[in-house]
């Protein structure tokens, strides 16, 4: 079961900056629902996702996972989160070793690693890539490997930054199906994209960010209508 993640007046400022990149966000994310995060470039989507994924610690406000402070046991919580960067980061190694990395650091056995790599590479149709040098893949291939690498440890929370941007039609289809099935398994899912169309298609709730602030939040249909009418207000 995914975690209930709640943010209470959360703000974040990058070191050396004087402006908050995420400012006083309050919101609750529930398991089994796909949340979409939209906003123009620089709105704060990536920063907010990194706060949710326990990569950045908020300077102000409170972040809770099922009513506990995840920062008190941060490695434990991170191990149940999939976070995929918008620009996929590959380890200098084969695709196989990239997929194996999160399992190796958890001390999982070789056989189990092979089993899971087999399963996940079938799911995403990437069997042919396993022996390749990950650094030489196309951006789209890297993106899908990044997602596969984060789902391989069966996380409870799935946080994807611009997951569709580099994917072709076929891979988008696969990813949409995977997200749907993860949601029905009760995972907490948060996606950010500047591609409103994809977000509208996959998410049931949308948060609109602007200048680091929450502009409006609600069911997808309602928010999209408001966006068309330029009447978004929290």
């Amino acid at each position, binding site marked *: 079961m995914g975690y209930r993640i709640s943010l209470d007046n959360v703000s974040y400022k990058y070191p050396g900056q004087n402006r908050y990149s995420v400012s006083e966000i309050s919101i609750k994310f529930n398991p089994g629902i796909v949340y979409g995060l939209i906003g123009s470039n620089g709105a704060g989507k990536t920063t907010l996702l990194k706060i949710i994924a326990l990569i950045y610690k908020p300077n102000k406000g409170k972040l809770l996972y099922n009513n506990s402070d995840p920062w008190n046991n941060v490695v434990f919580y991170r*191990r149940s989160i999939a976070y995929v960067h918008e620009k996929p*980061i590959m380890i200098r190694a084969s695709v196989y070793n990239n997929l194996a990395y999160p399992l190796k650091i958890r001390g999982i056995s070789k056989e189990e690693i092979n089993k899971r790599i087999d399963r996940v590479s079938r799911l995403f149709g990437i069997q042919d890539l396993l022996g390749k040098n990950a650094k030489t893949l196309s951006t789209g291939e890297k993106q899908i490997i990044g997602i596969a690498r984060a789902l391989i440890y069966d996380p409870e929370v799935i946080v994807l930054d611009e997951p569709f941007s580099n994917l072709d039609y076929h891979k988008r289809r696969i990813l949409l199906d995977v997200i749907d099935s993860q949601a029905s398994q009760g995972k907490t899912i948060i996606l950010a994209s500047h591609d409103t169309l994809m977000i509208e298609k996959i998410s049931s709730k949308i948060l609109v960010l602007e200048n680091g602030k929450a502009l409006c939040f609600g069911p997808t249909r309602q928010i999209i209508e408001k966006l068309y009418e330029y009447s978004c207000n929290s």
Partner: protein
Amino acid sequence: MNELTTIILRSIAISGTATLLASAWSIPLAYLLSGSYRLRHIAYLLEALVGIPTVLVGLLLYMLLSNAGPLGFLQLLYTPQAIIIGEALLITPLITAVSYQTLKETRTRYTELALSLGATKQQAARLVITQSLPNLLAAIVMGYSRAIGELGVALIVGGNIKGLTRTITTSIALYTAMGEYENAIMLGMVLVLLTIGISLLVRLVRKRWDIE
């Protein structure tokens, strides 16, 4: 063994030891600096010192190590050890600055990646280092090339003593002064081969690395 061979081997040993020594403190220092916003000025300072003249390092070390100097009691002047120390100091800014650049680039990315995939702090640090290794190796080779090719330190604190501190570069200077150009040119070519050879070797290692 003939004298030229001894000189070549001595040069490799001295510069190699100096490089290892300098790397042993420069790379941890670079890692430390790359993780701190406040310490970045130290990195800028070291960057500025990358091209420090070898004779200047030689002179400063000479003043420290000479009998009247504060470290004179160590009796290190005109020993291979003195050259090792001098060359290690000489290439410290170079190795640190180049390592700092590559670590600063990889550190944020790979730390974030490792943590997001569930790594502990130590596991994340290990990933950063292994991902930077090819570039760190390049930094080390640059340091080695500068050490083996420098003259100022070897001449001033080594003293070009036959059978003890004579290196490739000090020999070249001597042979040239004596008009024995043939030997000078021969050693010069060996020097070029040594620096080119090591960087080719590293290139090969890096290639292997990426495939793994």
